[in-house]
């Protein structure tokens, strides 16, 4: 009897070891990737392109699931609350750095494991075509004209492009709120309002402005990045104009906090191969998005640095809670 019990226990131990071994062979079943934004949007597109490559590398189906709503809170919450086994991961966007600051959700960087950044999109300065001769002239006007002369848009209050407007004012040595920020639901309506004359600045991404810039309706004067964009080779960076400020939106592959190291490593490795593939590279470049795959450690550092500057700007803008 005792022997039976012993062998049973041994069996149980062996079984648990067995599952331990199976974990090492991650993934042995389909993986779900939660996109906290709607289907067809930027995050969705980037994630789906990468997921197609990742599927081949991991040899398991990848289900991309959209959980939009609540300014990204709903989907990010689902990622953070998922069991950290690598079978539910997600696509995190900069909001993870300031959900708590804005009082939207008790989520911080500590609730996530960043596998890698997938792509970045810098902010820019876009005006209605013909409104200003050069970036210098515009920046001079922002400095000299009274507060409220300029109103910008591109995202909701506290969104990345709001920070771009605030950060730009600050970098010019003016109060962060000097450029009035009018919230909008995405880049497209803001750009349309710029053309319609309801706004005079757009601090969203030059990528979003591409079609209207090509149409000669708007003009991109500067990029808030450390290097010029391949799709705008003639547009100077703020740094070139003597202003030390950059702001980039990012898309990252992420999971809940406490993702096992071997899972993160496996995703990082498989993702790197998929990301380097022709399909992902050309699809991203076609959209004008800068492809990035910098791995868990580097991307976590980058996201932490972003979080620090973003939160400082949010406090200056008076929207931090």
């Amino acid at each position, binding site marked *: 009897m005792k022997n039976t019990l012993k062998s049973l226990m041994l069996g149980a131990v062996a079984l648990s070891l067995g599952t331990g071994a199976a974990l090492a062979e991650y993934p042995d079943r389909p993986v779900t990737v939660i996109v906290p934004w709607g289907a067809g949007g930027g995050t969705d*597109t980037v994630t789906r392109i990468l997921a197609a490559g990742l599927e081949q590398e991991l040899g398991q189906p990848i289900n991309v699931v959209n*959980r939009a709503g609540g300014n990204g809170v709903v989907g990010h919450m689902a990622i953070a609350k998922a069991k950290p086994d690598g079978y539910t991961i997600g696509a995190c966007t900069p909001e993870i750095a300031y959900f708590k600051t804005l*009082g939207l*959700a008790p989520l911080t960087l500590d609730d996530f494991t960043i596998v890698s950044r997938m792509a970045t999109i810098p902010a820019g300065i876009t005006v209605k075509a013909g409104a200003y001769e050069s970036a210098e002239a515009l920046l001079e006007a922002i400095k000299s004209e009274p507060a409220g002369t300029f109103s910008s848009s591109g995202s909701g209050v506290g969104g990345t492009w709001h920070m771009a407007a605030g950060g730009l004012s600050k970098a010019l040595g003016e109060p962060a709120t000097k450029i009035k920020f009018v*919230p909008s639901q995405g880049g497209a309506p803001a750009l349309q*309002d710029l053309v319609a004359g*309801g706004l005079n600045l757009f601090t969203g991404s030059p990528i979003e402005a591409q*079609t209207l810039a090509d149409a000669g309706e708007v003009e991109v004067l500067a990029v808030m990045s450390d290097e010029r964009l391949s799709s705008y080779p003639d547009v100077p960076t703020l740094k070139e104009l003597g202003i030390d400020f950059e702001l980039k939106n990012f898309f990252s592959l992420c999971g809940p906090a406490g993702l096992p190291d071997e899972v993160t490593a496996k995703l990082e490795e498989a993702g790197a191969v998929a990301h380097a593939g022709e399909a992902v590279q050309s*699809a991203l470049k*076609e959209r004008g998005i800068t492809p990035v795959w910098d791995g868990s450690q580097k991307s976590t550092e980058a996201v932490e640095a972003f979080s620090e500057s973003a939160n400082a700007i949010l406090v200056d803008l008076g929207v931090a809670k």
Partner: protein
Amino acid sequence: MVDQIILALSIVADPQVILTILAASVMGMIIGAIPGLTAVMGTALLVPLTFFMDPIPAVAAIVALAATAIFAGDVPGALLRMPGTPASAAYVDEAYALTKAGRPEEGLGLCLGAAVIGGLVGTFILILGAPLLAKVALGFSTVEYFWLSLLGLTCAAFVAAGDPVKGLISLLFGLMCATVGIDPASGNLRYTMGSVDLMGGINMIPAMIGLFAVSEILRQALGRTGSDAKLATDHVGSVRQGLGAHLWKLKRNVARGSIVGTVIGALPGAGADIAAWVAYAVSRRSSKTPEKFGTGHDEGLAEAGAANNGALSGAWVPTLVFGIPGDSITAIVIGVLILKGLDPGPTIFLRQPELVYAIFLTFILANLILWPLGWLLIRFARHIVRVPRSLLPPVVLVTCIIGSYAINNSLFDVGVMLVFGVVGWIFEENGIPVAPAILAIVLGGTVEFNFTTTMIKADGDLIAFFARPVAAGLGVVTLALWIFTAWRVYRDRRKPPSDLAIQTD
């Protein structure tokens, strides 16, 4: 240009393109005919499939699916009083009344005829007037959008049948629901009660499924309308019989609906559903017999039925010309276009004219194919009414649940649907129309957000609402409608009921 059109023809004549259009049309029929599965949802479900297609078949699939789904949405509307998609909601009572009167083929035939004509007219307007119409919409700022959405809500008050007070109750309930979630202007949480799911606001599609479908199931289950089984007819006659003559009689309505629908579709944010509401309201306002509306009258049915299909084509105008989506379907389309290297924007007409012409051709094809397929659907649809009544509610409820879940993969939305089902049932039992509530849920956020942003820009100066010429024009029209309606209600209350029939407005 002739070379490019020939090139476009050769692209579209590919058997792969034709088969894709056919398959997508059948899929659209099924999705549209199932209440709770909308054209937008169908398009979203199609997107992963388009990843494996060439650019033109991918776009053709979306065009065909949307066009057929919008028509197919009329079928459950007529037979079960459940609009298959929100675009059929405006005239669902009209079509159902015809079915109750034993003439389902009349209503469905008109819907199909109007849909095909509306779709084709919309397509030709798209082809001829794309740059022009988009220029108009492009000049709109938040203040114009404010007035436009307010005009939409004002129309909802006109569509509200019977007592305007009850219509207002419904409207205000919808507006209240629209305030739930993160306020897009200030970023503050409102009425979320600590729920993460409520932060996203009340999702319109589960709410609509609940208000329209679940309330009906509840009503049947509770046996309040025991005669329902007899009301829905067993016999759907030949669709073609007399349809041509009937459509010719309504040519003014169909033509006006097609054009109004296309123009509204071309305005960013307003899609097939709003086009149908507005066209229905326009039809009622200009009818010689407005009192017949809601009782199975043909004018509003044909006008709105043409408008929603026209709007589908119209929505592509700003999408193609400026890369700004005209409705939620084209919002998804833009992602597909860019992925396929078809950068939407004015230069697409210069860089890839043959692809633009090919897209136009798929529009024509999709709308032509709608005729035989729609005819088949109507023939097949009569089997829906032959299904024992006790069998239908569970099946409908299951598809409602799947539909509510699928839109955002959220169980919470299933709960929203059930709650709104109960609310809808309470509304119906008390004679309160549910349609204004739905429109208020859709437009409430738009009205508020554009009001707030206009005020932020103008530092609270109310003059801003009339400071731009187009805004002033829209504002005057909206306010005039309010004053006129108020005056009419006042006049009607003072006059004896017998005088109501001879209004000349």
